[in-house]
């Protein structure tokens, strides 16, 4: 693949223009090729820069965070870990897990053993997958946060969650498994007149993106489901 094609394909990847198979191939390729991983991380960072440069009304906090981000080396490191290793290391694992669930073993390669599982889609199958993944990790004594924002908040709201009992059971069984909802997303739903009452075991965080950045900079791994 020449450089120009690589850039165009990278754009397809970060803009969500690839289908599932293409994403799988791309992520596998990133896993093998550090320069492609770097290229993808840079492209994603560039896209984030543009997004954060034009906040919506009331998103000045995000704007301030964006400035902070680019002047703070800890957060830069967190971002690169998020974009590069989060995509390059976790996604293949996840895809392989789907194809051969019994064959996968997570191996700890540092003292830290903590994972943020991020859900942002209105998809009960997706939520179930997040819960299964969280339980699987918790059984291995991995510290887990399931973080929901945007449409993923449905998992944690009393009147929309199809898995309220499962959430309660998991929270009771695994003290190191936390359910965290984005307060910014909840406020948006509330402004649209929706009921945002949360399940009992759900905590809130001011902003999902800040929560991820904070955790990743503290050595947690990030998994988007």
């Amino acid at each position, binding site marked *: 693949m020449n450089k120009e094609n690589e850039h165009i394909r990278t754009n397809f990847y970060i803009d969500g223009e690839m289908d599932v198979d293409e994403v799988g191939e791309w992520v596998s390729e990133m896993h093998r090729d550090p320069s492609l991983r770097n290229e993808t991380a840079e492209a994603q*960072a560039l*896209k984030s*820069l543009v997004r954060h440069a034009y906040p919506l009304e009331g998103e000045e906090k995000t704007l301030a965070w964006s400035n902070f981000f680019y002047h703070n080396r800890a957060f830069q490191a967190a971002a690169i870990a998020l974009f590069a*290793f989060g995509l390059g290391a976790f996604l293949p694992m996840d895809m392989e897990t789907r194809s051969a669930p019994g064959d996968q073993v997570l191996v700890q*390669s540092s003292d830290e053993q903590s994972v943020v599982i991020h859900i942002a889609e209105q998809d009960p199958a997706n939520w179930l997958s997040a819960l299964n993944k969280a339980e699987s990790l918790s059984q291995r004594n991995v510290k887990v946060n399931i973080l929901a924002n945007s449409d993923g908040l449905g998992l944690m709201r009393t009147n929309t969650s199809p898995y309220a009992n499962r959430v309660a059971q998991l929270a009771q069984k695994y003290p190191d498994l936390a359910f965290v909802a984005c307060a910014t997303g909840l406020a948006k739903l509330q402004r649209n007149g929706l009921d945002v009452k949360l399940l009992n075991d759900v905590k809130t965080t001011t902003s999902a993106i800040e929560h991820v950045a904070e955790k990743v900079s503290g050595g947690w*791994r990030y998994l988007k489901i």
Partner: protein
Amino acid sequence: MKIIDLLCQNRQFHQSLEKSRPRLQRMARSWCGDATLADDLSQEALARALQHQGQLRSIEKFDAWIFTILSNCWREHLRRKRPNVEFHEEEHFSDFHTPESSCNERDVVARVRHEVSRLPDLQRQTLTLVDLEEFSYAEAAQILDVPIGTIMSRIHRARSKLRSALGDLQQELPTPREAPAYLRCVK
């Protein structure tokens, strides 16, 4: 029942219209670089949307429809301002001066806005539709009334320019190799 359906659709339309206002302002601001003009353009787009509500066939298409109107408003503004300039892919560079033009180089947000404002109009429009509103390439092609291949090449060229212009910000980032791996998977 038909009357109730119509009333519901009308209510949904007005809610969508109201919710789109800040997004239209943001998009217009990214295109023109001026908050006052952005406000005028978004107001114009909202007024036209109200006038031509009947042209919207399905509320699911609302976003693409309203941003198409905004794009038309912006294009008409440029035509009034620069009547003899043809819109080509590369030649038509932005000539507006924004507060960001004299930005403090340390202010990253202002720098990004400045570099975005220096992109050719059509590349800037395409990039911001995809990056700010997350329109798919197909939707962006529909909004701007160009083939999807044009969207791909504009995105490619716009990001290449931004990458060069803002490269120093990214060079400060550590490479992925420097970051430690905490978990890996084995079979």
